[in-house]
């Protein structure tokens, strides 16, 4: 038998749910061009799913990918990517999560699992090292993610196996369904839980007992120690270690990042913010900090509620998203209610960002009289009423009553309802956006809008522009002369292109963005990751070469979007509301995005990528320079290659 590559599990597991057949291929055939993780996932997706296939058809693929460093002591290497054609955007559906699932899968000997087809009855996949079986899931169908986790562990007689599963939302093809591991970690965006549901696949359970060996153990550990130390002393990592991602709500508010009443303003009444101070969560509800595979940042936490209407609630959470999605959007100022809403999303298997987006849109429709109690199953959608938000989450998950409409996401729902509600449905490429962009950094906004997966900040968006970085650091890391603060449009396209490449690298190595220079300039950069990659795999690579691989991955996703969803320049603009309606109150009053400056920034962004300014399409030269000739051929054949 051929020896597996260092730092890899060794195999790609193939599962045809229609025939029930499973087989293995060596991962070696897929490396090193697209690295691993997200890179290999999306190269498989590009090659195997044709543009005419729709997201819920059996021919769509659902691909789990670990990362190259997962299963080693490389800090934060706990992540897996999940990729499919997205039911939210029709383009690349790509989500990423931490948890213990990814390393367990690698210890079982697999780097990726590729699902195709559709099972006739509900099933789950059980991987016990090399023994792989599809098992009946009819007794689990309909259960929440927590119940599913319990039942599968009971079925298999082992409470330490790792489970990735969908809840009722995924089963009911709610477009924004997610896939949950460890009861609370979500591969959230892009509706991949619904793709899993469309395949009648309830869960993947895995137990792995194998080992991961690296090419040069002593050298690898030396680099690991250096990286570990960098993270241990980093100011940015220390803050996250203390608070998690839910922190500094007052600062977020002053900077115009919190949008009450579904983006009608970008400043929340400070009284509301005081009631949900992070200190209150820490003091009254947090019982411990939580981290996943080899993470020295451990930004998560476990909460217990012992009093009031939610007494008995015990769950992992909350994140900064809860501040934007529930506290700000609906003006909910009760900490236990926020914990409850977070927990409901996880239990139903709903992506919180998207589902709260659609519900926010419905609230504004109600405020404007576009939707009435008669349309809303008798509900009054009054801001700050968390019970109504909870009820609408339930209705969405089961596609019950008005929930059936909201399950389509704000964009589609607004097109169905009409009455000008399309104008205030906040989405990018069809996927709900959680952030207002009027007060945010201009590079952050650009990164969100041009993201290949649609409206999210985990591609080219950056935090650095708000941090006051010296020109020396700007030159050394990003090759730009300076950064003039968040609201400046200058040099921001460079930052976006840099982080698009870096995020593709991080997602392919399986490490977290919080250990990288995305989170702070004192954290790990491409050269650090290249050293880890080289010592782990035995294939020497430089930071620059790693970033080129990141650019290749980003370009194959871009090509997928052009071929499948027809995205072009017009899809790279922020929601119109952020250009037309200025912020109404607070320190950022009057701010909005400038269409002209956006155009300049976009021109620069396309130029840096070597893409066409008028259409955003890729050129043959740009693709061939990245060793993607066949992609250029595909685009040319479809008439979608830049001239």
């Amino acid at each position, binding site marked *: 038998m051929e020896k597996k590559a260092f730092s890899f599990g060794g195999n790609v597991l193939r599962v045809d749910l229609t025939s029930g057949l499973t087989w293995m291929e060596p991962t070696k055939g897929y490396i090193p061009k697209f690295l691993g993780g997200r890179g290999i996932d999306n190269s498989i997706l590009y090659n195997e799913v044709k543009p005419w296939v729709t997201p819920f058809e059996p021919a769509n693929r659902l691909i789990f990918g670990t990362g190259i460093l997962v299963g080693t002591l490389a800090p934060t290497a706990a992540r897996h990517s999940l990729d499919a054609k997205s039911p939210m955007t029709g383009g690349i559906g790509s989500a990423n999560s931490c948890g213990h699932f990814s390393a367990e899968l690698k210890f079982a000997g697999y780097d990726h699992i590729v699902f195709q087809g559709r099972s006739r009855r509900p099933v789950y996949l059980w991987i016990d090292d090399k023994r792989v079986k599809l098992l009946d899931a009819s007794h689990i169908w309909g259960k929440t993610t927590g119940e599913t986790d319990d039942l599968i562990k009971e079925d298999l007689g082992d409470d330490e196996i790792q489970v990735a599963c969908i809840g009722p939302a995924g089963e009911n093809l709610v477009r924004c369904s997610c896939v949950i591991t460890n*009861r609370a970690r979500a591969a959230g965006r892009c509706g991949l839980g619904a793709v899993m549901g469309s395949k009648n696949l309830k869960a993947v359970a895995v137990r792995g007992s194998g080992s991961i*060996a690296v090419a040069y153990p002593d050298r690898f550990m030396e680099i690991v120690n250096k990286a570990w130390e960098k993270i241990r002393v980093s100011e940015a990592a220390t803050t996250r*270690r203390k608070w998690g991602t839910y922190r500094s709500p007052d600062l977020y508010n002053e900077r115009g990042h919190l949008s009450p009443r579904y983006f009608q303003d970008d400043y929340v009444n400070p009284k509301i913010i005081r009631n949900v101070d992070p200190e209150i969560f820490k003091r009254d509800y947090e019982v411990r900090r939580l*981290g996943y595979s080899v*993470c020295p940042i451990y930004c998560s936490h476990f909460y217990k509620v012992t009093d009031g209407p939610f007494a008995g609630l015990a769950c992992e959470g909350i994140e900064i998203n809860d501040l934007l999605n529930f506290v700000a959007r609906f003006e909910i100022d009760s900490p236990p209610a926020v914990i409850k809403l977070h927990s409901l999303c996880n239990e139903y298997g709903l992506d919180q960002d998207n589902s709260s987006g659609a519900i926010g849109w419905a609230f504004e429709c109600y405020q404007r009289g576009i939707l009435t109690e008669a349309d809303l199953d008798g509900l009054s959608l009054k801001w700050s009423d968390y019970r109504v938000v909870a009820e609408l989450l339930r209705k969405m998950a089961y596609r019950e009553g008005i929930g059936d409409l909201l399950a389509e996401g704000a964009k589609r729902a607004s097109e169905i309802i009409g009455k000008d509600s399309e104008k205030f449905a906040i989405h990018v490429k069809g996927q709900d956006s959680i952030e207002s962009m009027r007060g945010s950094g201009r590079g952050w906004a650009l990164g969100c809008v041009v993201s290949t997966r649609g409206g999210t900040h985990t591609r080219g968006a950056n935090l650095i522009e708000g941090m006051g970085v010296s020109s020396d650091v700007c030159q050394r890391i990003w090759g730009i002369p300076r950064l003039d603060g968040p609201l400046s449009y200058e040099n921001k396209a460079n930052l976006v292109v840099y982080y698009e490449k870096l995020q593709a690298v991080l997602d392919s190595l399986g490490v977290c963005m919080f250990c990288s220079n995305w989170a702070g300039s004192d954290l790990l950069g491409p050269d650090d990751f290249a050293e880890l990659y080289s010592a782990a795999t035995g294939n020497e690579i430089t930071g620059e070469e790693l970033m080129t691989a990141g650019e290749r991955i980003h370009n194959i996703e871009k090509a997928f979007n052009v071929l499948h969803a027809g995205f072009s320049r017009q899809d790279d603009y922020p929601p119109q509301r952020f250009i037309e309606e200025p912020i109404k109150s607070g320190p950022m009053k009057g701010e909005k995005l400038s269409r002209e400056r956006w155009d300049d920034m976009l021109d620069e962004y396309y130029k840096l990528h070597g893409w066409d300014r008028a259409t955003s399409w890729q050129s043959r030269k740009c693709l061939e320079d990245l060793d993607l000739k066949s992609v250029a051929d595909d685009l040319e054949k479809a008439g979608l290659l830049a001239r």
Partner: protein
Amino acid sequence: MFHLRIYSDKCTGCRACEFACSYHHRKIFNPKLASLHIRRAEREGEISIILYKDLSEAEKRQRLPCDHCAGEPEPLCVKYCVAAALTVA
């Protein structure tokens, strides 16, 4: 010989100690070989740390007993425990 102090309440469940321990024994990564085990009860949010000092012959086929990190300047499980759930007495 190092003597470990275990504070399960501080453990975040990241299992870096298990990875490091298997590296100490075999220069590979395999938590199931490690001389300690992090048990996570995720529904309850509880975590316990189990240290294996003495193992039967049958158990030794599954995992390796703690040798107090013989030959290391400090126990590797302690070195990678940022949360200080494992310390040296």
